[in-house]
């Protein structure tokens, strides 16, 4: 939730002038910032996948116990895979 105002702030600074744009790029070079962004993106991807799962449940698909268990695991594992990807981005620094 804290990332909503932070994203607006970053957007505003990046659009101000060339120095502001470079400033935001500079923030994204620091590993603690990257680590925080990686965790936020992981949360977001998990939320997105779990949300798509709920949309399928809404229309009555995958509601049986076996399918629901499989899709729940798939969402959690897919989120973990993206976290690994974001971790590589942090370590690339």
């Amino acid at each position, binding site marked *: *939730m804290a990332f*909503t*105002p932070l994203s*607006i702030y970053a*957007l*505003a600074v*990046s*659009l101000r*002038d*060339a120095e*502001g*744009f*470079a400033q935001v790029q500079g923030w994204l070079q620091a590993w603690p910032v990257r680590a925080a962004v990686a965790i936020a993106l992981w949360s*977001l991807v998990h939320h*997105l996948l779990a*949300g*798509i799962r709920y*949309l399928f449940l*809404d229309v009555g698909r995958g509601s049986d116990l076996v399918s629901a268990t499989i899709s729940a695991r798939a969402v959690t594992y897919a989120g973990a895979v993206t976290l690994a990807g974001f971790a590589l981005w942090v370590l690339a620094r």
Partner: protein
Amino acid sequence: MHGSGLNAWLVQRVTAVYLALFLIALPFVVASMPALDFEHWRALLARPVFNVSVGLFYVALLSHAWVGGRDVAIDYVPNLPLRLVVLSALAFALIGSFVWVVATLVPVMAL
């Protein structure tokens, strides 16, 4: 339908679909920029279609956050005066964020 929660449910789902489509499209839009520098970034945001799409993204995000935050407050803050304080604080924060987004995007748009 008042009080059934159907409105909140519908707002949550409709905003979710827009948020999902925007977030999936965004990396492709950024990747299609000729170069990732200030001039191209500013030019991208100056395009009314993208400018308004970003504005709608934040409207959807803040509305989505209101439904989710309200659900959490209803489920976990049983004390009604305290719940009112929590929901008021959330509403002010979300509306303030919306004003900030408008103030950020409107001056950049090419009319």
